[in-house]
């Protein structure tokens, strides 16, 4: 176990709802803290007592394997009691409203609540109704802050800094919370962001983020340092947004031929799970020279430990008084 350093405040808010509200010093501090957990996680004893006695609830209204297990592992390594609630086992499927669920959970006195929900703004709504720290693990097409933070940690470890980096985010930006969080984070940190997608997969006025828009991937990839691929949901590939997987792969799938157009030494990232042969070619995904995909998963646990740690510092030592 590591010795407990004097815990300085990192985050102004008691919740992590999105990247948009974070400042550059907050992001930098979270990344610095996460570095210490990368080191810890690579050691033999991965456990600390930072969150001992605290209760963490993972509330997932959408199926998720990697985000949920990443948060679970992060909580357990920090010594918290972790409970997983998924929609199939909760009373939400019996017609309970989100607010009812929040009230019920509140009565169980959790300290930290990780929530994923299909509706944009759900985490924000819960944060107003609960006394604990709320961490947004993905709300609709809005934000997925820990994904952007783990992507940032991965990039910073490889490239040192963000200033001047050119990052291309490719694919289904329209439905992607990962894209929105990453756009906010990368722009705050001084990177240049390009969005590459067919017009049907870009939100209207996407350029208002302050990013460059490309519809031709071959043009968009030129001079890029990092290529971030997004997952394209299968149900969107049969004619409503994209006519077919083969057309999508032909024009927007990342293979070595298209990757050659990026800057030499460019890295490839993907939030997972991947659709091989749709948005990314296996030869690229599995190329350890360029693919950071496995590293992203490792950084995910460290980032989530950092976020839980940072938020718990704001929790009262004595706990809350009874109502």
């Amino acid at each position, binding site marked *: 176990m590591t010795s407990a350093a004097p815990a300085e405040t990192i985050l102004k808010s008691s919740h992590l709802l999105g990247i948009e509200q974070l400042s550059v010093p907050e992001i930098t501090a979270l990344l610095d803290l996460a570095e210490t957990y990368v080191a810890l996680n690579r050691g033999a004893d991965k456990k600390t007592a930072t969150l001992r006695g605290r209760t963490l609830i993972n509330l997932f209204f959408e199926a998720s394997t990697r985000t949920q297990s990443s948060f679970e592992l992060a909580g357990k390594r920090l010594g918290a009691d972790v409970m997983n609630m998924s929609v199939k086992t909760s009373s939400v499927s019996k017609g309970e409203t989100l607010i009812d669920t929040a009230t019920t959970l509140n009565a169980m006195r959790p300290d930290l609540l990780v929530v994923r929900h299909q509706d944009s703004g759900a985490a924000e709504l819960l944060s107003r109704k609960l006394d604990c720290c709320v961490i947004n693990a993905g709300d609709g097409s809005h934000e997925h802050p820990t994904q952007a933070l783990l992507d940032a940690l991965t990039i910073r470890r490889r490239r040192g800094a963000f200033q001047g980096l050119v990052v291309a985010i490719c694919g289904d930006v329209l439905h992607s919370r990962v894209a929105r969080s990453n756009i906010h984070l990368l722009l705050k940190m001084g990177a240049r962001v390009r969005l590459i997608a*067919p*017009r*049907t997969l870009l939100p*209207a006025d996407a350029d208002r983020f302050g990013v460059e828009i490309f*519809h031709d991937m071959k043009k968009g990839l030129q001079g890029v340092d990092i290529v971030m691929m997004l997952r394209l949901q299968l149900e969107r590939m*049969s*004619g*409503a*947004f*994209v*006519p*077919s997987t*083969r*057309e999508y792969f*032909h*024009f927007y799938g990342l293979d070595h031929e298209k990757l050659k157009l990026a800057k030499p030494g460019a890295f490839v990232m993907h939030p997972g799970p991947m659709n091989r042969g749709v948005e990314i070619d296996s030869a690229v995904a599995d190329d350890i020279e360029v693919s950071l995909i496995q590293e992203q998963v490792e950084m995910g646990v460290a980032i989530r430990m950092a976020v839980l740690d940072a938020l718990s510092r704001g929790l009262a030592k004595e706990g809350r008084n009874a109502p």
Partner: protein
Amino acid sequence: MSLASKSGRIAFRNARLIDPASGLDARGGLLVENGRIADVGPRLFNDAEPSDPEVIECRGLVLAPGLIDMRVFTGEPGSEHRETLESASHAAAAGGVTTIVTMPNTDPVIDEPSLVDFIRRRAAATAKVRVAPTAALTKGLGGEQMTEIGLLQEAGAVAFTDGDRTIANARVMRRSLAYANTFGALVVGHAEDPDLTAGASITEGEYAMRLGLPAGPAAAEAIVVERDIRLVELTGARYHFSQISTGASLDIIAAAKQRGVPVTCGVAAHHLALNELDVGSYYTFRKVKPPLRSEADRAAMVEGVASGIIDVIVSSHDPQAADTKRQPFAAAAFGAVGLETLLPVALGLVHDGRASLSHVLATLTAVPAKILGLRAGTLAKGAAADLVLIDPDDSFAVHHADLRSRAQNTPFEGRHFHGRAAKTFVGGECVFDRKAMR
């Protein structure tokens, strides 16, 4: 039959050269070399003829770029008894048309890259004129799922359209336009609200009432025209209305063009020359889609061409076998052949003093070429020698037995016209010579 000389050189002398792309309208000559226009100009061959080429003495007839017909249905593949690419190309050549833009409404529907390839290969092997295939905008013309516009474009589709079908769902239309614009592709729309016109076989009005036929309102067109223009404003796509037929549509398009919306439109020749009364006594050869309209609408179409708000004139060539036309009016098939009457109808506007010859020819050559992005429709040096020699005063009556089209459902049977193609050349090769046919 070919007039191309062995040297591959043909000299046209004493022609009235009309090149709408450059504004040229002058007496002069034109030299073809190896299928391309090598030289053109007012003084060419005035004094001395070039030594070796084949010489065509034009005697003041009009030499213009070959026509581009943006709306042609064939029956290949699937209903070759109606029309093949080959038979359509014979009709085209006789009409002075050197490029036909084929509609995807075949069986199977042209919604796969391999089928675009099939059309191009069949055309190369059998057709006498150039064939520019369009592909479907939605799979199976179903109006729901967009096609592989990127791959279809790479395969050679020049535009995307559901032919004579309107995409009813505005959301599908919006996404299709947005997706097409990703590839800079041209979308060609048909404007007829499918619910308002369901079961209709004629335009709504007094005449339809007297005939007792199921009718659809003319507004069914303007409603879709307005909708699609709003969607083009949202998506920025390149959009062409295949054919309009009402004054209301014309007003909407004029206003849109004024706002700078990138839309263009066409009109079918029969909507310039016929009105609803021409349906007469249930004459099914004049059952077309959209239907023949009121005289006011017909006059508006002529005015639209004259003013330039209507960009192109098309034949809307739609061959139908006799068995589907020899039916009670409501049960008969839609469609009329038109490749061989396109130019005569268009020249009618010139004879009536409604538009100049150069302006009318522009709607059939330079303008469609520009909309489609084709390197055609011009007499410029270096361009392919796709040419039509027009006798603007050749007087004749349409007789179905003279038509080269496999189907003979002309709406103009017995009608007298002035002016038609005398000779047609594709890539410098003579594909039609009226004298030789006689």
